[in-house]
């Protein structure tokens, strides 16, 4: 029964949704301190290539690859983020867009390492490694009535779900901390925040680097879930797609990024007819959102309202019991 429910295709889409949520969080984090970075695709590419190369050439376990990838992306984040402090708004967006394109050109041209536009294949797959692990431990998928590939995709999905929940939990916690409040203050008014004694340089670079690490992390997961990457995966279109997650869902709250990524990944899958026109629809969405609801579908007010409604209902039920 379980075997029929678990269609590998749906499991695969589920994994993509989770990776996209992580990507959306990466742009949300940089936006939360008021910086628009279009370099997420570049950082994602750095993460994906680093992890893929490390695991292919040095035979290291995937987890080491992922950690190294996140670190490398983070270092690039500092390198790009520190000088970018001088830039704000539109200029930062363009510089990071330029950074993403430079990275793509390097992936295409550094053929001895990246295999150029053909891309890297044969990257260790998370699911298959986990399957081997379980096999060694004596657990065979057939013993719980699953086919091998179902089991593999299910494992990937569960693992990604745990990782995503951890990341969301981390950033929700951070929002309510000193760091999160500093980000919010800088977003509101940089000069006022500075006058309040907030170290702008530190917090802006911190949020930029966090975004880079998260994007690089998502990139390395992407590489190990697909087992194949090419420079086209990290081009301008990817950057725009990630931007849409945040813009559509709402960039004020983390829930917006999650909603945007989920909705925008499901939309072309649910409506096969439109998947050919997917990017045209993305374009229209951006235009309409900016014209009618620039803060995104889910806003701070909406979350507050939902919370109030939810808690008042709970309060009533409490009251009736007493």
């Amino acid at each position, binding site marked *: 029964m379980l075997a029929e429910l678990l269609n590998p295709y749906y499991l695969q889409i589920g994994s993509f949704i989770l990776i996209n949520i992580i990507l959306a969080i990466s742009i949300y984090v940089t936006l939360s301190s008021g910086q628009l970075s279009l370099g997420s695709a570049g950082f994602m590419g750095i993460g994906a290539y680093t992890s893929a190369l490390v695991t292919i050439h040095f035979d290291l376990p995937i987890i080491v690859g992922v950690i190294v990838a996140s670190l490398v992306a983070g270092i690039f984040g500092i390198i790009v983020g520190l000088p970018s402090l001088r830039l704000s*708004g539109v*200029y930062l967006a363009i*510089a990071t867009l330029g*950074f993403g*394109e430079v990275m793509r050109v390097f992936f295409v041209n550094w053929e001895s390492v990246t295999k150029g536009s053909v891309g890297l294949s044969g990257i260790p797959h998370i699911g298959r490694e986990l399957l081997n692990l379980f096999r060694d431990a004596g657990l065979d998928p057939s013993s719980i009535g699953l086919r091998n590939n179902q089991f593999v995709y299910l494992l990937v999905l569960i693992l990604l779900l745990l990782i995503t929940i951890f990341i969301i939990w981390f950033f929700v916690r951070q929002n309510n901390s000193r760091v999160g409040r500093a980000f919010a203050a800088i977003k509101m008014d940089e000069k006022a925040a500075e006058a309040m004694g907030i170290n702008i340089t530190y917090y802006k670079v911190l949020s930029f680097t966090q975004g880079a690490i998260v994007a690089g992390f998502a990139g390395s997961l992407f590489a190990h879930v697909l087992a194949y990457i090419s420079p086209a995966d990290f081009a301008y279109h990817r950057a725009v797609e990630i931007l849409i997650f945040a813009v559509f869902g709402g960039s004020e709250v983390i829930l917006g990024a999650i909603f945007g990524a989920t909705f925008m990944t499901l939309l072309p899958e649910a409506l096969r007819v439109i998947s050919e026109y997917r990017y045209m629809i993305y374009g229209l969405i951006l*235009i309409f959102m900016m014209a009618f609801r620039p803060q995104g579908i889910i806003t701070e007010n909406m979350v507050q309202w939902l919370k109030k409604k939810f808690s008042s209902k709970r309060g009533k039920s409490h009251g009736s019991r007493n």
Partner: protein
Amino acid sequence: MLLEQLINGITLGSIYAIVALGFTLVFGVLGIINMAHGEIFMFGAFIGVIVTSTLKWPLWAAFLVAIVATAILGYLLERFALRPLRGKQGVSHLAPLISTIGVSIFLENASHHLFGAGNQPFRNSFAEINFQIGSITVYLVQIVIFAISIVLMMGLSYWLLRTKAGKALRATAENLETASILGVDTKRIIILTVIIASALGGIAGILVGMAFNSVNPQMGLSMGLKGLAIIILGGMGNVKGAMAGGLILGLAETLVVAYGDSGYRDAIAFITIIVILLLRPQGIFGKKSAAEGR
């Protein structure tokens, strides 16, 4: 050999300059980076292909049709992507950037459906005509492109500096509110600016078609990003800076292809963006204050 490369570079650079002029006009007046400019340019190029190859009309007709079509696109862009955002409360300054990215994505993928995703040949009757001057070969196309660019740039400079509409445009660029108080119809000027910028893009599209004999839907993106690099190089909203920046980038790219690694040609523009933004954010020709406050 070097001289030939320089001629190639100047030809390419003069096209870049025209693309960048479209960017810089819009930025100067509206303070907006029009990310859709590259795609409007690409539409101009495709219209050139359709008019000359499919309809078999002469080249000047291609220019006319492309100018009209891109001007209409420019009007639609202003009407649906920029006007709704203007003067609205609580709209961040990033909203127009995102909105025009939306237009660019839409147009690029619309052109996949309209014109096909692959390369389209751009034929013109005098593509192969060339002259030998000493040891170097000069193509007539290059001379035509250069001449058209120079005429356009001079015309635009004259229009901006001497005519009433040009002065109104510059006044609006200086300060929209003050210009409006002084009786400039700023709404009309804004529409006019976007239309002229788009038409310049359309002309550049045909020039690129003539220069490279091939047109594809992806060229809008790379040209758009290069245009951005140029206006950052030359100073945002600076007309002369855009012209000079275009020539510099065209020459730099041609020389890198000739004497270096051609694969990195597309990276030059972006490396330029990053270096200039970090060292001299106001651009080579820009004033200090231009980079602040946005």
